């Protein structure tokens, strides 16, 4: 491939993979089953120049390839602000870079959660995925194997079908490095949706880029909760793989992922720590005026949209002073439209954002000061990225706050 026999684009991509493989200490290249591309978000002209160069050299993907969110909602473009010069630059760049990846033959999913609707990698298969939440979900919940790929190498793997044998492709690198002990939590707390982004946030904090192992959690946990855990752990830290003993596929027992549990650090997670962590993550105070609700980071699943419809159905309308957003992928949008849920959301003044996300595109209106979310990832990034205050809450608290127009949460949620 390096000699240009399969074209200049393949040769360029193979040079990149070979060099990265050398840097990571890989012994050889392996075949991959699928790729997920993150380089389609617009952070500047450089990424567009690279994508256009690949297109001009004739690049085409050779394995099933999904794409992450872009910086534009192609289905509802009016939702993305294009008022300032910077906003217009980003919106125009976003359209062009999304088109360049489309030209390379990707499946135009434009979602950060391709694993819930578009492609479901099998246990033990090697894949080359970028986007931190998708990486951690594929490795941990599905048991597929991907290293933590970033922008640019993702498409290089997609157009060659190859990846360096390094990192989390290697079984020895998939063992647990630290234990998070949740046994002291009550069954009620273990059932709370907010528990999972908080556990993720703590795991990222303790683990950095190592593999955390949870003990003391239920054997059946809805994958939306595991999605929230993974996304938060890959935001506060760089977690690419977690195990939950008795729940996730590579960890039927503690011994299957940790040879000698007493030789690695153990951190105890209790109700006090959860309380403190939620207070630390939230930058707004109880009773603040609420400007916006942001759900669906990572992109909402069909079940999450249904839960929101159920939550909104029994109670009063949301306050007219609050903007209510839920982000999802276009495949889920279609399914939820057919099921009648999207019409119900629109009837409740909820704006459905697709193809992008309220924290990567300019969705929040000027003057937005306080946002409530059920996403640990949004809570981690939004204060710095968007300059707004944020509160991490349960779905029920998000809806309740939206009805009152004021930030409201249970300050003693984790005890009892």
């Amino acid at each position: 491939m390096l000699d240009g026999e399969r074209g200049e684009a393949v040769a360029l991509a193979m040079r990149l993979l070979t060099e990265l493989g050398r840097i990571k200490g890989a012994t050889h290249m392996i075949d991959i089953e699928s790729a997920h591309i993150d380089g389609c978000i617009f952070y500047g002209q450089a990424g567009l120049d690279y994508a256009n160069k690949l297109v001009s050299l004739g690049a085409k993907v050779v394995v099933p390839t999904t794409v992450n969110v872009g910086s534009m909602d192609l289905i509802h473009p009016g939702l993305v602000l294009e008022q300032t010069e910077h906003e217009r630059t980003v919106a125009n760049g976003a359209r062009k870079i999304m088109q360049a990846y489309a030209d390379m033959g990707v499946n135009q999913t434009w979602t950060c959660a391709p694993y819930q609707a578009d492609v479901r990698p099998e246990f033990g298969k090697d894949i080359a995925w970028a986007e931190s939440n998708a990486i951690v979900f594929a490795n941990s919940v599905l048991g597929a194997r991907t290293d933590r790929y970033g922008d640019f190498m993702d498409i290089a793997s997609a157009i060659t079908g190859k990846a360096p044998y390094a990192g989390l492709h290697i079984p020895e690198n998939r063992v647990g490095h630290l234990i998070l002990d949740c046994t002291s939590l009550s069954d009620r707390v273990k059932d709370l949706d907010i528990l999972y982004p908080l556990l993720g946030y703590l795991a990222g904090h303790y683990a950095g880029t190592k593999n955390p192992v949870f003990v003391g959690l239920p054997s059946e946990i809805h994958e939306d909760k595991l999605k929230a855990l993974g996304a938060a752990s890959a935001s506060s830290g760089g977690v690419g793989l977690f195990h939950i003993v008795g729940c996730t596929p590579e960890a039927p027992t503690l011994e299957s992922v940790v040879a000698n549990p007493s030789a690695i650090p153990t951190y105890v997670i209790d109700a006090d720590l959860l309380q403190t962590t939620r207070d630390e993550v939230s930058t707004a105070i109880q009773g603040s005026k609420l400007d916006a609700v942001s759900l669906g980071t990572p992109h909402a699943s069909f079940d999450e949209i249904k839960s929101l419809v159920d939550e909104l159905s029994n109670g009063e309308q949301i306050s007219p002073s609050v903007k209510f957003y839920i982000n999802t992928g276009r495949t889920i949008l279609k399914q939820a439209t057919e099921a009648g849920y999207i019409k119900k959301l629109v009837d409740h003044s909820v704006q459905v954002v697709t193809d992008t996300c309220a924290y990567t595109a300019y969705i929040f209106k000027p003057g937005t000061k306080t946002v409530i979310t059920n996403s640990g990832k949004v809570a981690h990034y939004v204060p710095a990225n968007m300059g707004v205050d944020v509160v991490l809450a349960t779905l029920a608290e998000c809806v309740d706050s939206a009805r009152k127009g004021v930030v409201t949460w249970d300050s003693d949620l984790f005890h009892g």
Partner: protein
Amino acid sequence: MDKTISGVPLTYGKASGEVLFLDEPISFWGGVDLDGVIAEERHQQYKASCVGKVLVMTSSRGSSSGSFCLMELMRKNLAPVAIVITEPDGVICTGVLVGKETFGMDLPVIKVKLADLAEFKTGQNVTVLSQIDDAQAIIKAS
């Protein structure tokens, strides 16, 4: 007398500049602004410019979109001229490798031993040489 620190070549090239020593890792996504200045308020080198510097630190951290942002700084000629780190940092190296393929620009990145990092001090003049099987940083005597 000049002092030579040997290391491992991660990306290739030759460059000279003034050292900017970072006491803690930095994310090129969010941690460094569009003008190449450290923008993270809690960072000890907050407001220091990376432009044209030999950046010395243990590693980068945070989002893999750091590759994109480093490459954007290269495109605008606002990147460091060389980077000295202690880990085979995939995020930094990816940005540099793709920058070379797209713009034909070199930015040598070398890996040195953690113990050697203390030899570098902000303001020193350093030349970084990185080629196949050989990498060194030459610290000019002040």
